[in-house]
């Protein structure tokens, strides 16, 4: 009997919570279901802080079409079922724009978002073939796919060798699981097409032991290294490279390399290191400056100041500039209130949008949900990141072949 009463009490409490949460006002809400406590914490605090700061800025300027915006940040601990819980809960509260910034959770939420008609933003994570808008109606991985990013890295190397890659040797160092394996196919295709030699160097997770990998790299002497690793693994790699006398200039990282990693490698030791990116790094971008004067100098920042100096803060600003810009477009197109359909239409009218010089210009169309996939290569000069290329998106035909081949499997 005691058990019964307890159960009843628990359920009535749950019922109360539900009833309470359904009486909110009508701002434009974005569901930010992030992993703030487990695997993705190298980036999520900065990105979510940027999202909240940007929402404050937008609200200070009168919101979107006169309505306020709200970002609802929740932790899902990188567990698919908690991500689904977050998604289900918020979508019943009327949220129709979601972002998970976690590949496992994005994968798990995707079938539901597709069935329910909710917009799933999944910049930089999740399945890359979702850029194919003809298959993935409701998914917008705006920004580069890993395939596109790797292809752009190859294009950069080709530039360095004046267009002739026949005697170039490229090493690909990657985490040996889907995140790192993804670019292999495209690199192999490009290696055949351009005639460069490709060597693969899988790194076992979690990347804390790379001794064997780098002594093999030393023997093989590749001219360039494209590196698909995260966080601390970059630091381990840099140590092994010093030990094996491999120049840092060969290192071209995926976009997941930030100022914290640079500080851990050592500002001097990292000179020459390169990374592909779709946002401008460093604290000097116009939007961040505006946030500084409008919010942080008034003491209203959503988090510590030093986090805003990180490149992932800029990444967050870029992601949410797109989210809010699309809402603005939606209001222009179909007026208030914004609905999932009008928001989708808003997203698909974004043309050469670069958030005032913050990121690679994007153009979203009903077919291309990736926005063009432009990136550039930046080099660390000891103090700041120096761009080495323009915003480029090369070998798009090859990339789209891979995208379509993969996305066609989803429909089966």
């Amino acid at each position: 009997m005691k058990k019964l009463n307890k159960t009843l009490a628990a359920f009535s409490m749950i019922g109360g919570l539900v009833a309470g949460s359904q009486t909110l006002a009508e701002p434009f809400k974005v569901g930010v279901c992030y992993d703030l406590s487990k695997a993705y914490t190298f980036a999520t605090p900065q990105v979510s802080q940027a999202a909240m700061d940007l929402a404050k800025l937008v609200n200070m300027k009168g919101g979107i079409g006169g309505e306020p915006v709200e970002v609802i940040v929740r932790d899902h601990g990188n567990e698919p079922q908690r991500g689904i819980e977050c998604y289900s809960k918020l979508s019943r509260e009327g949220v129709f724009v979601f972002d998970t910034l976690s590949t496992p959770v994005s994968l798990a939420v995707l079938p539901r978002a597709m069935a329910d008609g909710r917009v799933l933003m999944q910049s930089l994570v999740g399945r890359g073939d979702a850029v194919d808008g003809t298959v993935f109606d409701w998914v917008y991985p705006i920004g580069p796919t890993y395939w596109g990013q790797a292809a752009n890295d190859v294009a950069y190397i080709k530039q360095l060798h004046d267009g002739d890659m026949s005697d170039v040797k490229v090493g690909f160092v990657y985490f040996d699981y889907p995140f790192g394996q993804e670019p292999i196919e495209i690199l192999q295709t490009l290696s055949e097409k351009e005639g460069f030699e490709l060597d693969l160097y899988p790194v076992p997770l979690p990347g804390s032991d790379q001794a064997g990998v780098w002594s093999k790299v030393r023997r093989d002497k590749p001219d360039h290294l494209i590196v698909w690793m995260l966080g601390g693994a970059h630091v381990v790699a840099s140590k092994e490279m010093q030990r094996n006398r491999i120049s840092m200039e060969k290192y071209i990282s995926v976009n997941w390399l930030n100022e914290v990693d640079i500080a851990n490698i050592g500002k001097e030791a990292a000179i020459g290191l390169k990374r592909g990116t779709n946002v401008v790094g460093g604290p000097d971008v116009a939007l961040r400056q505006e946030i500084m004067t409008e919010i942080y100098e008034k003491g209203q920042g959503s988090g510590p100041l030093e986090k805003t100096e990180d490149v992932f803060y800029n990444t967050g600003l870029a992601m949410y500039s797109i989210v809010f810009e699309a809402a603005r477009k939606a209001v222009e197109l179909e007026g208030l209130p914004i609905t999932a359909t009008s928001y989708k239409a808003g997203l698909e009218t974004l043309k050469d949008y670069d958030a005032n010089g913050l990121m690679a210009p994007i153009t979203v169309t009903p077919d291309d949900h990736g926005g063009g996939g432009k990136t550039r290569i930046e080099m660390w000069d000891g103090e700041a990141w120096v761009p080495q290329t323009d915003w480029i998106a090369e070998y798009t035909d090859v990339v789209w072949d891979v995208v379509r081949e993969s996305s066609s499997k989803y429909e089966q």
Partner: protein
Amino acid sequence: MFYRLSGVHHANYVSDSRIFKVPADRNLAIFIFLFGLAAPFLLPSLYLNSYMLPWLIWTAAALGLNLVTGWAGQLHLGYAAVMAVGAYSAIHAARFGVPWEFALIIGGLASSVIGSLFAFAALRVKGLYLALTTLAMQFVMDWVLTHSPAISGGSHASLQSPTLALLGQDITSDTGYYYVAFGWCVLVTIFMLNLKRTGLGRALVAVREKDFAAAILGVNSFYYKILAFAASSFIAGVSGALLVATFFFLAAPEQFSVAVSIQVLAMVIVGGLGSIIGSYLGVALILLVPGLVNGIVAGGSQSLGMQINVETLAHIPNAVYGALIVIILLIEPLGLGKLYGNIRDYLMVWPFDQLRK
């Protein structure tokens, strides 16, 4: 006073082999069963498909692990890998055009075969050594999944599950999914309830307590260990397949990673080894409490108008949840199931036990 009997005493063999030794337990089980049947009409759909459904499927899975760990006493750290085998085989079978009823059984059987391989390890090594061997199996499975696109599907090793259909009926509604999960969980629960009073159950317990002593009594520990692993793997396989078919809709290696294996083991240990109601409670604690605490902390800080950093906000529930596990295991090392038993036993003799003091 609260129960009509003052302790559990058996006067004959029939009463000893009853499923429920205390009538109130049976009434509670009936009440929970009826509540489960009526849940789609009582609960909002959010609670139905984000809490109840995963709870039931994970409970079925945890009961399977309880069979091998709680009853047969074999520590198993590769349970999620066995679930993955079931999930992937069933989905591949269903994609190939096999009806779901058979696809689920194929998933279960495939798991049984792979899971029985663990049993061969269990015959050679025991305790912590077995734990490490099964952990190694988990890593092997992870590696196979991430390195063979033919098994794991296309982009990011994710495999789309076809629409679930049982008995010629397409299942697409929240209620439908829920009843499938409920049905499976009830089946597993009935099996486990009956296991206790069969020769098989007693043999497993004998093997758990001391396998060579069991051998002296004429219990073939080789046979029963394999049987335990095969049966529990079958449950794992079908549960894994149903988890994907009714909840994730898409299988990915992360859903069956080593972290998940440890989580299921935690469910069983916190719930109580060899306890059925304990498995239900343990799953609720490990699976649902983090999300609930998260919601309560977030809601609480919002309504109190506190400006807490989102990161701190994400870590408080983790700390609370961790503390909860520690406190529960300190109060009752035998888990939540035993805690329930303690409360029941106390109430059964109250207030007469007070006279003795």
